[in-house]
């Protein structure tokens, strides 16, 4: 036979998840970003087809210039490895976009990372170009129909 106190604790336990979810909803409704830890599943809000059928995608191109004058494109997955692939875009958005993507710590890290990727060359400059792209699906094929340059950051790696 279960005691009254056990039953009461169990009743509270069954009520608690409702209260947690309500508190989370109130928190986000007040304009705050999603907290963690939280009892939430992904919303996948944002990226949808627009009225004309196009899909807006933010993309990034990272170019590196070396001491000898040569240049190369650095794929984001290579630069940010071993970060989980699905984290990279948001992480780049935080670290490689204003207000200060060229902090001393960031430059130090970029120098070290590029030295790992290009061990025989010395990188002097990094260009981070953000784009707003638009794609369409026509006849089962995805085509980029627009590319608008957004912001560009030139990061001097010799500082």
């Amino acid at each position, binding site marked *: 036979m279960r005691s009254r106190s056990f*039953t*009461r604790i*169990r*009743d509270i*336990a*069954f*009520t608690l*998840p409702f209260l*947690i*979810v309500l508190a*989370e*909803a109130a*928190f986000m409704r007040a304009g705050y*970003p*999603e*907290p*963690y*830890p*939280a*009892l*939430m*599943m*992904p*919303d*996948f*809000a*944002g*990226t*949808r*087809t*627009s*009225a004309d059928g196009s*899909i807006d*995608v933010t*993309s990034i191109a990272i170019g590196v210039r070396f001491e000898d004058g040569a240049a190369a494109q650095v794929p984001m*997955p290579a630069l940010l490895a*071993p*970060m*989980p*692939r*699905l*984290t990279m*875009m*948001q*992480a780049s*958005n*935080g*670290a490689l976009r204003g207000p200060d*993507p060229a*902090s001393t*710590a*960031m430059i*130090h*890290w970029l120098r070290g990372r590029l030295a790992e990727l290009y061990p025989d060359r010395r990188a002097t400059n990094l260009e981070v170009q953000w784009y707003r*792209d638009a*794609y369409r*699906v026509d006849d*089962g*094929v*995805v085509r980029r129909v627009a590319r608008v340059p957004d912001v560009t950051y030139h990061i001097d790696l010799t500082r």
Partner: protein
Amino acid sequence: MIDGRTSGRVWDEGYRVSARSLAIFRLLFGTMLLALLLPRYQWIARFPDAFFHPPPGLTSLSSGFPSRAYFMGVDALLIAAAVFLIAGRFVGLASCLISAGLLAGNIWAYSFGKIDHDILLVILPLFLAAAGWHGQSRSRAWPLALFALVISLAMATAAWQKIASGWLDLSASAVLGHSVASAVLVGEPPAWQLALRHLPPAAWELMDYATVGLESAFIILVARASLFRALCGAACFFHLVVAQLMAITFLSNIPAYAAFVDWEDLTVRAGVDHPLDRAQRWLSRRHTWHLLAACGAVSFVYLRWGNPLRLAVSMLGPEHASLPRMLALWMAAVVVVILIVFWLRDRTFVHHSVPLRTATPEDAPALARLINQAFRVEDFFKACDRTSAADIVEMMADGEFLVLDSADGAPTVAVFVSRADRRGYFGMLSVDPRMQGRGLAHRVIDAVENRFRRAGCHSIDIHVVSLRTELPGFYQKLGYVESGTKMFPRPEELTRPCHLIVMTKALASGDGAH
């Protein structure tokens, strides 16, 4: 409205799975942690604090990431806890450490601006520990019911946010939009080209609705355990489709769904229950120092070189990095298909009446063989056979053995039945091990209950050995409740102390089904 009292009546028994089933799941969960998910946080320490953009929460007061030693410690703790969880030692502590370790790592991993919504993976060990996945005593149903409610509410948050952000808008497709974005940014998932070429626009829109519908259905159906389980099965396919179309191998919810599977039944039907039992017994007998040494060795390998499975896959190329997770999703889908097949077979065959005959003394040697084979599962606490031909003949004076014969005439199922006043009793229910997992026990119990009902009995008693922790849950599902305990009648046969649990089912005259 779901309140505690409602939950006590409706949820407790509907969500119950046997302690043995939970113990098998514990083994699977610990193995999954070690094989697929650990080490988990070593990459964080490689990035500078410029990447530190924490969400509101435990890390928002910090100015940057902790040192590498912190993440080494968290991963080593998780590895040790997973080893002890698999071994079935200090299970409560190991469960708490896994939850704490996952949280202690995740709060930093998700401070890069991206939250992976794997909170169910974090809290799962706490609920399962409360439910009794150590497997040493009776399982509890209410923690599983509470976990089901938590899952349902979490899924409801996803549905609610999708509805609020326009997923049900017929002029736009969210699944298509996200699939294109994933294909462009992350790479094309396996079925992407196929879906793109052959699916009409309406199918993409339908997927938006199906996603919201599935996520909403959890909270609608959570009060019905059987429907909730079916929904968990559907969700496994949902995550597989998402992985195929959007390159998101969202594995962390799969263990949460798998917690509700009757793993005992599945392993018995698949014929792997005995090897699993042996493996669990072998693991549980390891000395603590051996386990600590194993923790040290695994931690050293994992933290020095990385997860061996991931290393092996990385040799195939970076584009195959998600292969183990994809395979795990496929395996989950295969398990669901197997469960559906078993369910359909049971639905087709279980309710057919079975032709039971009364055994004669001439059947005694064959019955003794059958019963002793079926009761080999009790060898872990008994030092001798369950019965003998002489015992069976002696028992026939107090009742009768009912037998179900196979096509070749050999007894396949046997059960001893007797009655006194208007109380029925059955025991020694034995199914030929080669025929187990086909619903025969259910059919015979059904037939025995009908027999007692026709004889005017108002109740049935059974005796269950306390060490057979899986049996009370099995019989509870059939309507039996614990009504007392008794001493084990032949204690000299025991290698471990135990007693008998008396379980009783009231028989209503019109109660023809269980």
